[in-house]
């Protein structure tokens, strides 16, 4: 059975797994128990590439309290496969340092928090 906690614990070990519907093949990130396309509950783990391309991005300079020590940073939506996207952030200080279509790799920083949620941080590295 897939779960969000298990998804993040796999990610903490540096591996990105989605949930793949064994009925229609749809992949979700994070995985869910009910396929949003066909409503099947037969969902299996499916290993995904740690690379993708930037579909959209924003440069955050005014951050929420829990992230204010990291600002500025960009948050990117990354397309891994067609209709399979995930999100990560990259330490840059100008919007000119990144563009739609850039190839990026997910870089996982293991969680050191003792407070819920004890999930890893998801960063991005630009690939040339």
């Amino acid at each position: 059975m897939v779960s969000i906690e298990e998804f993040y614990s796999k990610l903490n070990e540096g591996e990105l797994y989605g949930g793949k519907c064994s009925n229609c093949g749809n992949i979700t990130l994070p995985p869910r128990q009910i396929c949003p396309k066909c409503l099947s509950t037969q969902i299996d783990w499916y290993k995904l590439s740690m690379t993708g391309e930037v579909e959209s991005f924003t440069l955050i300079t005014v951050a929420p309290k829990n992230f204010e020590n990291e600002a500025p940073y960009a948050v990117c939506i990354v397309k891994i496969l067609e209709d399979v996207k995930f999100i990560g952030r990259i330490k840059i200080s100008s919007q000119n340092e990144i563009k739609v279509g850039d190839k990026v790799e997910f870089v996982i920083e293991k969680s050191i928090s003792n407070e819920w949620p004890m999930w890893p941080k998801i960063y991005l590295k630009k690939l040339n």
Partner: protein
Amino acid sequence: MSKPLASIVAAGCSKFGKRTGVMARELLVEAFQEAISKSKDPDIRKKIRVGFFGNFSEMYEHQSHVAPILADWLGFHDLPVIRTEDACASGSAALRTGIMAIKSGLYDVALIAGVEKMNNRRTNEVLEGLAMASDIAIEQWSGLTFAGIFALMATWHMHKYGTTETQMALVAVKNHKNATLNPKAHMQKLITVEDVLKSRIVAWPLKLYDCSLITDGAACVIITKPEIAEKFTDNPIDIVGSGSSSDHESLIERKEISDIKGIAKATREALEMAEIKIKNVDVAELHDCFTIAEILEYEEIGIAERGYGGKLLEEGATNLDGWFPVNPSGGLKAKGHPVGATGIAQIYEIFLQLRNEAGPRQIKGAKIGLAQNMGGSGSTHFVHLLKNRS
């Protein structure tokens, strides 16, 4: 034209702004006193049978369970009350719930209120509270703010359709101009496109003047069964359509991230219910939490083709004297965005417009008005259509 769902017989709105030294409940007292003063029935308060209260975050005043407390402060000590929370659409959620209560026949008179007191906290804490409306399993964890979420939509819309930062700035310029005609607006300041483009980045491509305001405020309406409305006022405003929808909160789940499909669905539902075409709407209040949102909304409600929302601003189509005036109140952008109050404050503005009571910002001869309010990234949706009886 179909039979109305319910009728608005009174409406009130507090002054919007940084309301230092006033608590949420006291802001609502201000709005409520205005509302009941507008009824010709001096005993309207005693006729209210139920209350629905829209309020977003318990974090700002460290106060959850607001419904009985708000009711108590208004003088109700024995009233069925329910709080509704749908992030920035909490107010409209209260209205739609109230409409269901009236339409079901369970109640004949209902108080619908929305309130938010946000300025007790510093900005990063307010943003943290707002960010709680995004999905913790995905987007909260990435360090996104709501400006960031709408910025992601803006970047994509710029990339795919060529929407420009200048077009977004025109939303801010228009809504600020309208707000100078609204004494209750938070900001009373004319700005230029240059001012917007030169303001500091908050979440590129959105800059400070692309963002709505952190505002304290409250608004309320009293709604009744249509057939008894004229006992309370000679000029009731009928609610003739109510549409609602939901969608993925997380943008990564959306096939195209700048499509906010729930707006189109809710608008269609409301229009069909009212048997009205969008082109017959005389005035609209749209949810301009960020300038890009108003542009996307033009496309979703059906006054612009996909990708062409920005063009309407260049043509002045949505100015007070345009063919489809949007946000005469100043919108969330300049009137302000006290989250839980916003949906009801939109209804308040349409109520004034349809009663020809909007003063210098009055849209001449307005008969039909639309209010569109959404929560989060555009995952909860409410669209209401109002009409006068002239």
